């Protein structure tokens, strides 16, 4: 058994390169997704019916079709419309466009979650409409949506695995190749699983740290598992 793990050790560099590529794509696609999400959320809330319609079509088209299909459409479909992309760019675009639609919903809900009383208090104090939005609504909405945004970032990371279907040498694609060469299924995929766990763990941790520093008061992103005890003792009540 150990001989087989040692063989895989020879592929260490490939794994690291693949992980790095995965991270790059994740971050680039995420930036695109944030931009698209914000623009779409603003469009959804605009008074122009056309903008609202476009936003709606975009969101529904993305959310009701599989991301794998969207990747294929970008990579295989665009060339017949005259746009040829390499796998890397196609991957970033497809994933960015996909997650952007989900982020749009997140942003919209976040803005709506700010209580009306906040708007009333701000306007009575004399703040104008755009000031109310920037100084009062946005900071509170941002804080409200932060956990959901982090979740979507992790989903994006996991979504990069599908880019192996367009022959991109990210983590899953590399694993498949190594698997085909060594036929060490269990070992290869175990290492791949661990790699993804490490990547998602690190991203979550960094996001958590940013959360505590950027927001006032500090936003703590802990997911404490709460054990629901059937109440046995009165003293258990905290």
């Amino acid at each position: 058994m150990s001989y087989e793990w040692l063989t895989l050790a020879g592929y260490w560099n490939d794994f690291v390169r693949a992980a790095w590529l995965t991270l790059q794509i994740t971050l680039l696609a995420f930036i695109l997704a944030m931009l698209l999400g914000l623009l779409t959320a603003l469009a959804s809330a605009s008074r122009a019916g056309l903008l609202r319609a476009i936003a709606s079509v975009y969101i529904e088209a993305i959310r009701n079709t599989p991301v794998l299909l969207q990747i294929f459409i970008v990579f295989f479909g665009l060339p017949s419309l005259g746009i040829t992309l390499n796998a890397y760019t196609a991957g970033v675009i497809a994933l960015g466009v996909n997650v952007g639609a989900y982020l749009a919903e997140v942003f919209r809900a976040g803005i709506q979650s700010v209580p009306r009383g906040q708007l009333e208090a701000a306007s009575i104090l004399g703040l104008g409409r755009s000031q109310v939005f920037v100084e009062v609504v946005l900071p509170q909405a941002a804080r409200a949506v932060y956990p959901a945004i982090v979740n979507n970032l992790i989903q994006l990371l996991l979504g990069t695995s599908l880019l192996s279907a367009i022959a991109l040498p990210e983590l899953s694609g590399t694993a498949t190749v190594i698997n085909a060469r060594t036929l060490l299924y269990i070992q290869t995929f175990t290492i791949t699983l661990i790699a993804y766990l490490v990547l998602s763990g690190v991203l979550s941790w960094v996001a958590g740290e940013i959360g505590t520093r950027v927001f006032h008061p500090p936003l703590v992103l802990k997911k404490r598992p709460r054990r629901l005890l059937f109440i046995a003792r009165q003293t258990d009540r905290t």
Partner: protein
Amino acid sequence: MSSELLMTSLAILIQGLVATLLLSAASIVGGTLIGLLAAVLRSFGPWGTPRIARLYTELFRGTPVLITLMFIYFGVSYFGYAIDVFAAGVVGLSVYQGAYIAEVFRSGIEAVPKGQWEVSQILGLSKTQAFFSVALPQTGKIVMPPLIGQYLSLIKDTSIVSMIGMSELMHAGQAIVDRVGKPVEIYGLVAVLYFVVCFPLSQWVRHHDRRRSLLS
């Protein structure tokens, strides 16, 4: 695109769609059972099972379903057994979505006010009775929209099983494009088919999801 091509393509795609729906149905059942079990163990389980349940959900929510599928499909043959793609797909999707479904059930269980448990205990109900007669009915309304939402994700995720060779809708589309080209038209058709299945569900979820807070 000629109507001939359209007709033949549609015929093949519809076949694929049927396979997709079968796979979805089986995985929905599997995923719900696993998710329910995991959620119950997490909240009420004895000695160490809550931790196992938690590790399970964190494992499958932090890794891509593709790798899980490959693990199952190739890994099984490593041990000398054969497994067909459909079974691998069902197991893989059930286990993967089960982790997310478990979280949906868990927040449903935790949404039941603490007072309900206390009242049940004082009235003399056992844990099981309290769960089924008091808690479950109350979680129903809260849990349904996100649950249907997960089912929706599951249906879309069946497309990933095409990558280990199952001929469902996505795979059927790829096969046609490999033969005749025209990716925009064919994949567009595939998209329409997925849309027709998913849209009613997503509209239902959107309609019923008013109450849920952003951070539940």
